[in-house]
């Protein structure tokens, strides 16, 4: 078991982070807004943590670990910064709908990337490296990652059943009808957008430590598409969909890599699993969208399971 954790600790924590990033994209989607801004806030949170831990806080003495309190402060700063920026961007951007909002948020992600490539404080193209470690090994990040995932999932689960959540759903189903019934569209859209941004920013702050380094290659447009895939494959109509999508799609390439190590496999199959794992990965995603057009988890499926349970 210890060996399993040494080898897959990093992967397991990455899966948890991916699940939360998928949730951060799912939150604006609850109001029917396709926003791809999450990677921008993720990058922002990462830079905040990277700069604070390497330049603001006193250097960690050799052989000691980075105090956890500092990490929590960084997460808090990242959350506040992401929230402020999200409100600032959200109010004008959310006047756009559908594909135009998606485009505007892609532009935001690009702005963050180009800024971080050019600013002295973000280390330009090389980025910031030598970020101190608050834990002894990668798996111990679960002490932060697991509570974060449980809290955020529980939060979204409760949200879906609250007054605000029903307002979100109403906006998603029919904005005009919802507005006529007294739901404030701007307020609710900006709220969902901001919640997604805060989650992405906080995950970014922890990720900077987790990856040891932070640069402009983190949280790019490619990442936005990946998060969208998490949501679409997992299911975009219930909170469990994005979580499962993030966990599954992050694990899949590495599981395929590990499968090659199975002893009784013929050599060419093992070789194909190593070299062709991305082909299989792509194929599985394509098949999933064909056979599960609503995503792996749908509200109907949850209802059916619930009925069987009673």
């Amino acid at each position, binding site marked *: 078991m210890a060996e399993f954790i040494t*080898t897959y600790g990093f992967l397991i924590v990455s899966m948890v982070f991916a699940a939360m990033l998928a949730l951060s994209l799912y939150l604006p989607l609850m109001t029917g807004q396709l926003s791809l801004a999450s990677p921008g806030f993720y990058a922002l949170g990462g830079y905040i943590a990277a700069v604070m831990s390497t330049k603001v806080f006193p250097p960690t003495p050799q052989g000691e670990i980075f105090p956890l309190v500092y990490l929590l402060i960084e997460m808090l700063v990242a959350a506040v910064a992401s929230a402020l920026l999200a409100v600032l961007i959200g109010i004008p951007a959310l006047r756009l709908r559908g594909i135009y909002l998606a485009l505007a948020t892609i532009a935001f992600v690009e702005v963050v990337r180009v800024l971080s490539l050019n600013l002295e404080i973000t280390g330009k193209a090389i980025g910031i*490296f030598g970020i101190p470690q608050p834990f002894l090994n990668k798996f111990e990040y679960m002490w932060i990652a697991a509570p974060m995932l449980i809290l955020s999932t529980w939060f979204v689960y409760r949200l879906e059943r609250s007054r605000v959540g029903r307002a979100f759903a109403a906006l998603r189903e029919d904005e005009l009808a919802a507005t006529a019934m007294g739901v404030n569209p701007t307020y609710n859209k900006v709220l969902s957008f901001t919640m997604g941004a805060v989650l992405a920013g906080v995950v970014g702050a922890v990720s900077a430590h987790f990856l040891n380094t932070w640069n402009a*290659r983190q949280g790019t447009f490619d990442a936005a598409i990946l998060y969208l895939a998490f949501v679409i494959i997992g299911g975009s109509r219930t909170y469990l969909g994005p979580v499962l999508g993030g966990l599954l799609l992050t694990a899949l390439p590495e599981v395929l890599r590990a499968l090659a*190590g199975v002893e009784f496999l013929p050599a060419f199959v093992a070789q194909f699993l190593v070299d062709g794992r991305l082909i299989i990965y792509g194929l599985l995603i394509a098949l999933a969208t064909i056979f599960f057009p609503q995503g792996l988890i749908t509200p109907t499926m949850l209802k059916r399971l619930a009925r069987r349970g009673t």
Partner: protein
Amino acid sequence: MFKAYRPTRFILFLFILVAALSTQFVFAQDQEPIKIGVAVAQTSNVALLGQEQVIGAQIAEAYFNEKGGVNGRPIQLVLQDTAGDEAGAINAFTTIIADNVVGIVGPTLSQQAFSADPLAEQAQVPVLAPSNTARGIPEIGEYIGRVSAPVAVVAPNAVRAALELDPNIKDVAVFYAQNDAFASSETTTFQETVTALGLNLATVQTFQTTDTDFSAQVTNALALNPQLAIVSGLAADGGNLVRQLREFGFTGLIVGGNGLNTANIFPVCQALCDGIIIAQAYSYAADTPINNEFRTIYKEQQGKEPPQFSAQAFAGVQVFVEALIRLDNIVPLETLDLATTRKLLNVFVLAGGYETPLGPISFTPTGEIVQAQYYVAQIKMNEDGQTGVFTFIR
């Protein structure tokens, strides 16, 4: 009504996942081949470089096994794909370390090294970087070294070579791709070299690797009438910039950065590529016994001259093999457990000198390469304007 929902299927799925993953640990503790890890980018947009590294490492594996491996015990490469990102590098490193390798050659990019090398340092596994050229790589830890000379050492040679070709150079125009990590660190070196050589840094123009139109930058620079242009970018944009410089009437010498150090720029600037001067950490023309052998094998397999990336990967594997042989001569490897082997191997890697295809190399105590010789090549395009060669002028 959701209270009754029991996620049995997910739990079952998780069990299958865990079972699938744990089968990895059923490896036999065989006495036989010594495993050396190679973690480079075999997929993503960095794969072109990574593939060259895989070829170089595999040639080294076959070559040294034919020579008897480590005092009779063969070596075996364990290849893992890092892809082009940081998380991929960490995943590849953890997989490879769990596979009981004695050392790792990799990763491809410097940013990946900043991410994955601390893991190897923590696990006390020696790492030799085959192509990380950024500042600060060997300083990541005592187990981290590199066989790729840092850009600050290699690049100035091209400017010196240009001065030899045209001693009248006074004003220099520098261009660089500001969104590329390598180009933006390389240009700092170029600019420092220009100033150090007493030349006038007339202008610094920036562009993006995705740009195709450079007329603004070229017009700005040519207004100052420079005699030398220095371009740091990647193949497509760098090649286009060179072409537009020439089309706008620039007649001086052009020095290219390492991103232009590939035959892939020939189709971009075609006949106008002629004369670009590029500094090299490796020359296929170097007349040493080991390089001649390496060059012959590479040409037989690939039908072209070996590039720098393959030679550096070869050198990485070679350093591990030769250090293992010296270690085995003093303490037989069978008597050592894996952790001790790794620790001692690191000491032996740093202590030795090696006759590699790159020429004679050794290491500083921190793991930085000490390379005896650098080269400068100039592009000579053929009559057809489509093909060309790098001819070594220094």
